[in-house]
């Protein structure tokens, strides 16, 4: 299974994607978690102490092509090698890589950004599941930063701003490879919220996650919600999302 979490900032992508990756790994899959946000995010929900896990400069080499500066993974380094060498592992064995820390004004991020993109283009193919977490908004998703995904999971809370972003992200279905785009209704408080999120974004509903005060508590404590409240509403809902998507993916 290859999925990418997208949605408006604050919708809950990072909390859900990290939890999703760990639950998926718990079902026996080999999982790579990819966070293409330069700000800390997915590491917290994966239960990792380290949030900046970018490829080191030595993993990426510069070369010239038709007079232009370009970047690629170091000679002989495949995407799989890079994952094995540079990813950190969660308790469940999830491999985690992140875009790398944004380092100060006027710093050139080309090496870091193109290195991450080359890695995305050379990811291990069979035997791996990939769970991606993209920054909030539409910019990275439409700039193909989730191109490894067979399925985009749009996280939407039942607010007009979040719904509007969700509706725009529905157009990801028109991207190359015709990925599937599903919606997850998050922070659901009323019984009709989930159906309305699906109707207003025009996206099929994968499932709903209830509003859960334990998420806010875990965030305040700097803990993963799966560690803070392993049997709570969010963990339970994510287990159900994983099971539903696994079933659907098998069917397809």
């Amino acid at each position: 299974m290859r999925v990418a979490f997208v949605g408006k900032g604050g919708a809950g992508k990072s909390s859900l994607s990290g939890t999703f990756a760990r639950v998926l790994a718990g079902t026996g899959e080999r999982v790579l978690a990819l966070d293409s946000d330069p700000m800390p995010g997915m590491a917290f929900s994966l239960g990792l102490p380290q949030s900046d896990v970018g490829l080191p400069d030595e993993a990426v080499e510069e070369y010239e092509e038709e007079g232009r500066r370009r970047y690629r993974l170091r000679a002989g380094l495949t995407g799989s090698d890079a994952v094995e060498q540079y990813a950190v592992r969660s308790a469940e064995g999830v491999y985690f890589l992140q875009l790398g820390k944004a380092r100060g004004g006027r710093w050139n991020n080309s090496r870091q950004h193109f290195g991450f993109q080359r890695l995305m283009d050379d990811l291990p193919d069979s035997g791996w599941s990939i769970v991606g977490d993209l920054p909030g908004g539409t910019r990275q998703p439409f700039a193909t930063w989730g191109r490894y995904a067979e399925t985009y999971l749009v996280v939407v809370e039942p607010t007009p701003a979040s719904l509007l972003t969700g509706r725009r992200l529905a157009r990801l279905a028109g991207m190359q490879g015709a990925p599937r785009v599903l919606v997850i209704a998050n922070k659901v408080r009323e019984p009709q919220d989930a159906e309305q999120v699906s109707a207003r974004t025009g996206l099929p509903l994968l499932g709903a996650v209830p509003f859960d005060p334990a998420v806010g508590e875990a965030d305040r404590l700097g803990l993963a919600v799966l560690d803070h409240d392993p049997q709570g509403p969010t963990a339970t809902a994510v287990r159900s999302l994983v099971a539903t998507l696994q079933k659907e993916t098998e069917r397809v």
Partner: protein
Amino acid sequence: MVVADFEAGIGTVLRLEGNPVDVVVVVVEPTAKSLEVGRRAAETVRENKLGHIVVAANRVRDAADEQRIRETFPDVEVVLVPDDPAIVAAERSGVSPLDASPDAPAVRVLVDLANRLLTTG
């Protein structure tokens, strides 16, 4: 007076050049993740001398929240915006909190901040 709402993260702040702003309001929540992003944002603003920093701490519930925020920003002016159901309700109905609940505690704190920034320049 120009008020700009920047993209999430610190990408825009990292790319600011020259002297385009007077004040940078760093909005944080009392969560580990948000405080870390805010800390990096404030560091960038300070290093590049972009402007005066005010931290607007949102969704503050209790003394423990306040302590987390003050420990992260010991030398910066902090405005505490309480966790306020009126804001959640306004967001869900797509109405500006200032129109829906002008007297809600969270709204009043922001009105005070705006007035103060206006009068002090």
